Structures are given as C-alpha cells and as structure tokens.
C-alpha cells in the first residue's frame, strides 16, 4: 500500500536500539547462514518446499534476492499473504454500492484499485463517488468528526495485525456518522487450507511475524502436532528470513517437526493479550470467502451483534453474496496459493503490469505479482 511504502522508505533510517537493524542485515552473517543451509541441503534429486504466507516476507525475499542464496532444490513459495488480494469482489461491490449512496468510503491506498465485479473503488471515484485514502482507521474517524453531516465508512481490510486497530476504534465512542465494513481475515485457517491442496506438498511453514505479534505462537501449534509440519515464526530482515529457513531445514533433516520462534524480539508466546482482548470484544469469528480460494470456515471477523449500529452492511442494508473474483485469463487464484509463480501467468508483464493491473495480485504492493514486477534484483 502506498502508506506502507512510505513506512518502508523510512525503514532504513531508523536507528533502532543502536545498530540493531544493521546487524539483522549483516552480509557476513547472511553468508554464514547460507553456507550452513547449503551444507544441510538434501540430495539434488530431493525437492524441499517451504511456504510463507506474508506479503512482507515475499518483499524481503525478492528485494534482497534471498532465493539466489539457496540451493536450487530448496524452494520458498508465497501463499495467501496479501490481505488486499484476497478480499473477494463481492466485498468491493458492497463498498462501491455504499459509496454510490453518497457515503464517503475511507480505505487504505491499495484497496482503491482492487477489481470488483463491475468496477473498482477508483472507477467509482472517477464517476463521482467520494472515496478517500487514509493511513489508518484513526485518520478515518478524524475525517468523520470534521464533517458530521456526512456518513463515513472505513473499509477495514487486513489480517490479525490490523484487526485490533479497527477493534480499538469501534469500541471507543465512534461518531454516529461512522461505520465499518469489516473485511478482516485470519491467517491460520488459510495455512490449514494450503495443507489440503493436493499437489502443493509443503515441507514447512515460515509463519508471518507481525500477525504473530498479535496472535502469539499458540494458534500454530496444530501444524507440527496434527500435520507434522515444521513451523517457524520469522521476522522481516534478510537475516530473519534466512535464519527461519535454516531452522525449518534443520527440523526437516531431524524429522522432528516443531514450532519455533525466530522473531522472539517481537513475538511472545501469548501474543499481545491486550490486542487479543479488544479483538474478541469487537468481533466474532465467521466463515467467509477469500478471492481465489473460496469459502474458508472460521476465517473472518464480523462485528458483534451489540455493535451492529457500526456495521456498514447493516446500517446501509447492503449484502452482496456473490461476485466475479477472477477475470478470464488471470491466474491469481493459482498465484495466491503458491501453485504457480507470477511469471508462469501468460499475462504477467504483458497485458498485466503495475501500471495496468488485471488481477488483485498485481494491484497491491504486497501482491506476489506486484512484488515480482517491481523488484529488479529478483531471482526466481
């Protein structure tokens, strides 16, 4: 998203705890880890496939060319880690319809161009709808306070990292002219789905660090226990990701799948209990559709009944059941579950580019197609 890009630009400048940041990018350490990985790699005829489920992991891997540091028989694939890409067309349609009623829609920048069944919010805006980009939900509330005569809706997209921010605002005294269109989704159910995809054959999960900051380690316990799947929660510096891969490989070699935390400087076993509490107070967990994936049980957050007054679907009486998720020729549904790489889609960088995106995976700056399209150091 645009504002995340802004944060990314600041990223390098943070002098955080002395030289901490630089240490997590230390090329010498990276070399050491990659040597270890090479040593531990399985014989050439054996393919090992690890899967991450986070757009920021894909960004780090692609941006720093980490795949080139791995032996050719260790693959890292991208699962459904882009919360903007998996918002189904039906929910974009709902936002468009609400906007067409004269309501101001506020949303993160990337959401603007995500295709709906007929049109995106950007196209609705071009036709006169009032759609505004915000940095976060608190900015949206501020806008609503400034214009009390207008109705405002915040299109709440995001995984567990973002959901608590929505929860805080909804539990505060939000202005009467403000409501939420909740598209929040939960990551563990999507990971579980990947394990059921026939020929995907994953050998380990690199679990998303910032989702885990909120939910902690416990929700991943079932992966090693029930599915015997090595699982490592990892951070986002190049060293974090390499170390995560090394830890997965080690588990794999020892044939002892377990749950490990590479990102212990941010992720606690119990997560952020304050955040979990407000989330639970504001939302109930429901089944929902994911673009390119279909219906997943217990995978989304809906405002609780007692907060219905702030639920935009209820407030404006708009419910779209089915939308058109994938355009003809777009392979987003295969990219999202890591079955193909972006450049295996015939439209990649031909009829589908960051300037003229066709599918949601090319729209969002965290979408796998977009990350591949905009990084020159990419190694496939």
């Amino acid at each position: 998203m645009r504002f995340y890009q802004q944060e990314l630009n600041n990223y390098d400048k943070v002098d955080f705890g002395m030289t901490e940041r630089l240490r997590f990018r230390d090329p010498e350490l990276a070399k050491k880890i990659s040597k270890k990985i090479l040593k531990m790699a399985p014989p050439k005829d054996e393919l090992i496939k690890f899967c991450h489920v986070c757009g920021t992991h894909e960004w780090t891997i692609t941006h720093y060319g980490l795949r080139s540091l791995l032996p050719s028989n260790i693959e890292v694939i991208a699962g459904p880690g882009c919360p903007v890409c998996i918002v189904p067309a039906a929910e974009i349609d709902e936002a468009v319809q609400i906007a067409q009623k004269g309501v101001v829609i506020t949303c993160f920048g990337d959401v603007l161009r995500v295709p709906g069944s007929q049109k995106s919010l950007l196209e609705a805006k071009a036709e006169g709808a009032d759609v505004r980009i915000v940095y976060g939900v608190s900015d949206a509330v501020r806008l609503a306070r400034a214009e009390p005569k207008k109705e405002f809706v915040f299109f709440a997209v995001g995984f567990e990292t973002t959901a608590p921010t929505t929860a805080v605002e909804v539990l505060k005294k939000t202005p009467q002219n403000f409501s939420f269109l909740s598209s929040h989704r939960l990551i563990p159910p999507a990971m579980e789905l990947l394990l059921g995809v026939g020929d995907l054959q994953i050998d380990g999960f690199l679990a998303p660090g910032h989702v885990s900051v909120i939910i902690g380690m416990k929700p991943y316990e079932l992966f090693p226990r029930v599915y015997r799947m090595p699982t490592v929660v990892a951070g986002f510096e190049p060293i974090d990701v390499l170390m995560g891969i090394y830890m997965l490989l080690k588990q794999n070699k020892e044939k002892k799948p377990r749950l490990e935390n590479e990102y212990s400087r941010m992720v606690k076993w119990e997560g952020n209990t304050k955040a979990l509490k407000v989330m639970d107070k504001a939302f109930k967990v429901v089944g929902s559709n994911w673009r390119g994936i279909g219906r997943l049980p217990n995978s989304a957050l809906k405002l609780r009944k007692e907060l219905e007054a702030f639920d935009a679907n209820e407030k404006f009486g708009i419910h779209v059941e089915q939308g058109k998720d994938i355009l003809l020729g777009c392979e987003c549904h295969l990219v999202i579950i890591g079955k193909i790489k972006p450049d295996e889609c015939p439209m990649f960088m031909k009829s589908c580019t960051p300037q003229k995106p066709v599918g949601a995976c090319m729209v969002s700056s965290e979408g796998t197609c977009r990350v591949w399209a905009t990084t020159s150091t990419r190694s496939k």
Partner: protein
Amino acid sequence: MCLAIPARVISIEGDKAQVDFGQGVLKGVNITLVETKVGGYVLVHAGYAIQTVDEKEALETIDLWNEILSTGIE
C-alpha cells in the same frame, strides 16, 4: 500490508504518543494496545503501536545465532 516499523517513544499524552522513526521523522501514534514509556521502543502498524520491542532480546538474538552457526550442530 502487515508491515510494522519500530520507533522510539518521545512523549506520551493519554492514549497518544509522539514517536521517532529515526532521523527526525516524527509521528503521532495510538498506544492503547501496548504498555510503554518515554524512551522505549514500539512496533508501529497503521498508526498504532502493536507491541513493545524487547531490546535485550533483540541484542541477544544475533549473538545466539552466531553461536549456533559456529558450532558443528546440524
């Protein structure tokens, strides 16, 4: 989109804090979701602090890795 950036807390007023992203990039963030103090580090996502950063842990992590990597254990 789950990108989150560490920043240092400069001042606190109620549930809001001014944080420093480095080189003078200041921003107001909501700190309802964390327990922090002036001078501490928080992880910021979409205008909210979502975690306090464990500095000691951060410093120790790399040492630990170097140790693991230099031993013969595989």
